[in-house]
């Protein structure tokens, strides 16, 4: 195999995406490698850890077709440091890979491609979704997913695809986020819900960062995302997703409208003096304003008052400051709507005038 790459940055970007997928040590050595394959006039590079797999077509000139696998980490490190000149990548005897660029020659020991796991292609029926919509739905929910290993089925985003809408849901048991959009093209015949592991979700955003349209294809226990240049395969998480519809409050009668930037700034500043063990931040809501306060014994205390654009309640409530900040930060309108019931029930945060996004946060008990 003999290949020429003129665009170092393109090549590097693709390899770095794959490096995130390639398995670490303590697994099959070949899984820490990227596959480089030149066939049918196309150069493809791929990596997989058997949970998530990505293959990307990269621009380049094929002088001689062939295939090899080589350490993802080492390849990324070398390419990153090379000058922005033409890179020649070729295979030599005994599965060696030779990289020549400028005055330098780098030889790394690879492994034959025969043992590299098969990678799927998009076949049969698929749906399409607007790339920006997909990225936005992930962005507006992912922060609420659990990263605790024991709750494996919460370590992912729940994609709920129905003939009417597409929903993405994330929760860690204390907060929850839902983003929705129009249904897929063509619409699914009946509702289907799948849990996609967080690792795959992060790679979707990177791999399809600029795609205008993304294809989605469901198989037994896998989901495939693809555009013209890349295919991402992920194993689905097994397990029953919590019945999230039941916990969305319908009788939160206190409605407050706040300026988002003003509120976010105040929350961030006051949170600096929240107790590092609990991150508790307190909201004292009155007719026209909300007083945001926090204190930590042996450290100090802070408060800031934020004017309400509208409000109808009088209530004291506390939250984990981090949850509140992250939810507010992901709302994409100028003002944010906060809906409350009482100091022990879930709060709802929404964009004003839009119904495609909702965050739920359970409060913390007020410290006496």
């Amino acid at each position: 195999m003999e290949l020429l790459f003129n665009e170092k940055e393109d090549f590097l970007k693709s390899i770095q995406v794959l490096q995130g997928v390639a398995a670490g040590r303590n697994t099959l050595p070949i899984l820490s490698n990227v596959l480089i394959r030149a066939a049918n006039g196309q150069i493809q590079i791929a990596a997989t850890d058997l949970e998530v797999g990505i293959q990307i077509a990269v621009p380049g000139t094929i002088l001689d077709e062939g295939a090899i696998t080589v350490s993802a980490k080492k390849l990324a490190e070398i390419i990153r440091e090379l000058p922005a000149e033409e890179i020649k990548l070729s295979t030599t005897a005994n599965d060696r890979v030779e990289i020549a660029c400028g005055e330098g020659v780098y030889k790394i020991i690879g492994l034959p491609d025969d043992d590299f796991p098969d990678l799927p292609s998009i076949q049969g029926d698929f749906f399409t979704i607007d790339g920006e919509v997909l990225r936005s739905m992930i962005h507006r929910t992912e922060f609420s997913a659990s990263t605790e290993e024991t709750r494996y089925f919460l370590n992912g985003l729940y994609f709920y695809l129905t003939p009417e809408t597409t929903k993405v849901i994330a929760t860690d048991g204390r907060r929850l986020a839902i983003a929705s959009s129009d249904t897929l093209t063509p619409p699914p015949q009946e509702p289907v819900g799948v849990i996609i592991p967080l690792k795959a979700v992060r790679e979707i955003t990177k791999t399809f960062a600029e795609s205008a349209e993304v294809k989605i294809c469901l198989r037994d226990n896998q989901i495939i995302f693809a555009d013209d240049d890349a295919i991402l395969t992920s194993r689905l998480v097994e397990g029953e997703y919590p019945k999230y519809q039941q916990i969305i409050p319908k009788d939160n009668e206190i409605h407050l409208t706040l300026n988002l930037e003003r509120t976010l700034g105040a929350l961030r500043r006051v949170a600096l003096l929240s107790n590092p063990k609990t991150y508790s931040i307190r909201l004292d809501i009155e007719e026209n304003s909300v007083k945001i306060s926090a204190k930590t014994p042996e450290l100090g205390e802070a408060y800031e008052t934020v004017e309400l654009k509208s409000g109808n309640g009088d209530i004291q409530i506390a939250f984990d400051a981090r949850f509140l900040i992250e939810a507010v930060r992901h709302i994409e309108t100028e003002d944010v709507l906060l809906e409350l019931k009482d100091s022990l029930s879930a709060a709802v945060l929404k964009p004003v005038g839009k119904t495609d996004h909702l965050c739920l946060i359970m409060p913390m008990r007020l410290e006496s």
Partner: protein
Amino acid sequence: MDEESRRKIIHIDLDAFFASVEQRDNPELRGKPVLVGGKPEERGVVAAASYEARRFGVHSAMPMKTAVRLCRDAVIVPNRISHYRHVSEQIREIFRKYTDLVEPIALDECFLDVTQNKRGMPYATEVAKSIKAQIRTELSLTASAGVAPNKFLAKMASDMDKPDGLFVIKPHGIEVFLENLPVQKIWGVGPVTEKRLHEMGIETIGQLREISLERLIREFGKVGGDFYHFARGVDDRPVHPREERKSISRETTFATDLFSTEKMKAQLRQLSEDVAQCLQAEGLRGRRFTLKVRYPNLTIQTRSQTLPAASADKEAIFSTAVDLLQKTEAEQFGVRLLGVGVSHWDEENPLQLRLFE
């Protein structure tokens, strides 16, 4: 592999621990077949059998009635669990003279990481010999030790040369050691997995090694990956010195088998209350609830469910246990034992409220 081969792990297993303690404390029992546990007429179970009794085919967890039939001269002594716990603590004190990396897995079993030991002894085999000698002289008990580069192999090794054994697996001997061992020796291979492996034509660890990682993961999920590594003698789990409880459970063996669902539920209610009380006393909340069933033919089945939110509530435990009971064959076959357990602790801020409660 370099780092792996540098670790020195010892697994120590006290020989017939409860029975040996009884024989040590009461000279009249020495040399006699001793069974620790409940009386046969009360449907007791063998908690431990001395080596003299094991010669007759008696083993722990066997119904006392069966044990007595196999070994007519057996002396039955009641289980003094708090006493064994005390002796176990004395043994762990000895371990801690060599290393702080002591991970207890049961009263009579521990892992020790002696790569860096307090005595500066270069060979783990010497450490194991020294520990065994100290247990013998100070506590008049014998132990079997397995020495290996990791926990998986060390545990296998301690089982090779019982009682009073010492078995060493050196890094270069791993492959030969594992080659012909039956697959069920592998950690995590229970009867169901064993059956599936047999169906795949795999009887020995050597045969298991021929199966690709992909296939094992496809067949068994994540644990398939563990099997792949274990089959090669690879195990990088560290020795955890923490001594915290991993689960809290209660179980009851019934005087007569239960066939009525109502009676089973009544038992589950009592067990759930006991577990909840214990959880609350320890200030723990768990997310994973487990039901254990032993059928009249003595086979055991467990069913678990992980909840989105942790709980220590007796109603939550009870209703999950009832749900899980429906996933067993209890109604069809009846039950001899029921057990309820809670694990997977929730370590979070007690002020934070949860969504799914």
